[in-house]
């Protein structure tokens, strides 16, 4: 048994599911193995805000008992970690903020509820940029997460803790959220797979809101197959989310075998023209060649308004964040300033001290673009340009089945590198945010290395084409083994 246990952390979710089914090991043994890895490595990575060791072992033991009786769900006894943006009943939910440092949610997010009812065992809650506002995990009140490929570098953000934990083989899979690239960008920078579903595909209920018209829950895994397994359990209509979409949920694992033969892949020339690191460009082109060799056709397409997506996104996202975060008033929950002299002072000081620099900057930016005299010039204008960007994608999908290109302009950058210039940090999201503006599904899949740092290939589909992008990513992983590379020291 000991020999097998040592290898458990290297297995994918699909492999672990088979192992549990064949009684090669128990959920308890699996969870014990991963908890000891978390204990060994997390002091250097800082990927976790909470680790629920005792509860996880209890849940794993209960799952083993249920399995013995034949009562086991799709994800029975399989380990998972949740980004600390998802509310978990009775468990600390901080959203990476001092504001929620002591917040215990009275209910579970729908995503948590669905995965738990499918049998998944929660090992912990992962570190993240404060309120998901950041691209490097450096805005977290709990300190930055470090990239297992080079601990002096960022794992990306905002789902950086989830990505680092999966990359370091501390856990096979994790949930994340993606408002402008917060799943795909950290996945690209850590050699993991990151799936952002169509807007409305997965419930936002209980997921602490950043920008409601852009936020979507998804997963970080090491294979497209694992992402398909999780999405099958997470997707679907939820009446508690007012923008949830009632659209049939297929078995995403079944459609993974769709061949690349005949798939029309759109390539955006602008992606390769400016800003993209040359070596990254070369890895992405290699990946596109692999897809072409397996029968896909590459078709050049144009998204004329793509360059406008960064300013458009930061107007819309900050406007929505300023509205969403007005609920944090220091009265009902969250950080409360001492000795307030009046109600206004209580609000201003609770929010001034409870929020970090980047969150305050975005609340103020959003307040400005929504304020009297500026609304038409900024917010309304951005909503119109958003329509143009969305229309560009729609036109492109009349010619192609998916669009493929880089996920990020560079590999992981050093911690501290971009913290002093917000615009430089925002431009890091150039390839990912168009997808959120248009509400499309996107996936990042490992496609090689530049100077020993991972590079991601992004595959984007039309609304509700998760089956197509998952199959494309899965097929790519059948012909390449980049995703099997493990950072040194975490084998």
């Amino acid at each position: 048994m000991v020999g097998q246990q040592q290898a458990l952390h290297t297995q994918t979710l699909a492999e672990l599911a088979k192992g549990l089914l064949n009684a090669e090991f128990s959920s308890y043994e699996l969870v014990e193995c991963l908890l000891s890895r978390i204990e060994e490595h997390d002091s250097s990575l800082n990927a976790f805000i909470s680790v629920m060791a005792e509860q996880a072992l209890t849940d794993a033991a209960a799952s083993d008992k249920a399995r013995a009786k034949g009562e086991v769900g799709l994800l029975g006894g399989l380990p998972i970690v949740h980004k600390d943006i998802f509310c978990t009943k009775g468990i600390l939910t901080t959203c990476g903020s001092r504001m929620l440092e002591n917040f215990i949610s009275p209910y579970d997010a729908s995503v948590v509820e669905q995965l738990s009812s499918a049998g998944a065992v929660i090992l912990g809650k992962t570190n993240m940029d404060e309120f998901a506002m950041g691209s490097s995990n450096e805005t977290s009140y709990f300190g930055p997460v470090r990239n297992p490929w080079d601990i002096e570098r960022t794992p990306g953000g905002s789902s950086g803790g989830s990505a680092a934990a999966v990359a370091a083989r501390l856990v096979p899979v994790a949930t994340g959220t993606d408002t402008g690239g917060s799943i795909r960008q950290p996945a690209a920078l850590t050699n993991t797979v990151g799936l952002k579903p169509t807007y409305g595909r997965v419930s936002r209920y209980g997921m602490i809101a950043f920008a409601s018209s852009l936020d979507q829950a998804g997963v970080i895994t090491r294979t497209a197959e694992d992402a398909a397994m999780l999405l099958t359990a997470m997707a679907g209509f939820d009446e508690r989310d007012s923008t949830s979409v009632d659209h049939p949920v297929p078995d995403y694992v079944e459609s993974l075998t769709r061949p690349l033969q005949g798939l029309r892949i759109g390539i955006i020339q602008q992606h390769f023209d400016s800003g993209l690191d040359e070596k990254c460009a070369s890895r992405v082109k290699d990946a596109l060649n692999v897809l072409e060799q397996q029968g896909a056709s590459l078709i050049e397409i144009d998204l004329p308004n793509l360059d406008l997506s960064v300013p458009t996104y930061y107007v819309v996202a900050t406007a929505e964040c300023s509205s969403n975060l007005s609920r944090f008033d220091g009265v009902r929950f969250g950080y409360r300033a001492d000795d307030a002299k009046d109600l206004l002072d209580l609000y201003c000081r609770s929010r001034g001290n409870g929020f970090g620099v980047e969150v305050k900057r975005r609340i103020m930016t959003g307040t400005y673009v929504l304020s009297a005299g500026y609304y038409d010039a900024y917010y309304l204008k951005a909503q119109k340009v958003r329509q143009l960007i969305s229309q560009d994608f729609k036109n492109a999908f009349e010619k192609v089945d998916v669009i493929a290109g880089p996920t990020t302009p560079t590999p992981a950058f050093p911690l501290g590198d971009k913290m002093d210039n917000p615009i430089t940090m925002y431009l890091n999201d150039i390839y990912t945010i168009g997808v959120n503006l248009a509400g499309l599904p996107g996936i990042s899949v490992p496609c090689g290395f530049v100077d020993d740092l991972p590079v991601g290939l992004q595959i984007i589909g039309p609304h509700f084409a998760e089956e197509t992008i998952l199959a494309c990513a899965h097929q790519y992983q059948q012909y390449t083994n980049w995703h099997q590379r493990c950072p040194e020291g975490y084998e």
Partner: protein
Amino acid sequence: MSLNKELVQHIATLARLQLEEDDFDDVVVKLSSIVDFFDQLQQIPTDNVEPMAHPLHQAQRLHPDVVTEINERDAIQTNSSTVQDGFYLVPKVIE
């Protein structure tokens, strides 16, 4: 710079955020750089374009007007440090 200290103070008040005096200059510079960055949108012709409010162009769904929430006041109020007899306490607002 597109913003000055006075305007930034006005925005902070609207947003109910207290800024530290030492941070003010930096906030003015960075917020101005963001607003300047947004200004490129002004060049784009959008005369006959409908503003986009929802990525899937869906209308808001309605539900039957019935009570679905259960009363969890006690559980919810455990997250506040200043509760008395089921009420939240705030500084006096009426003289």
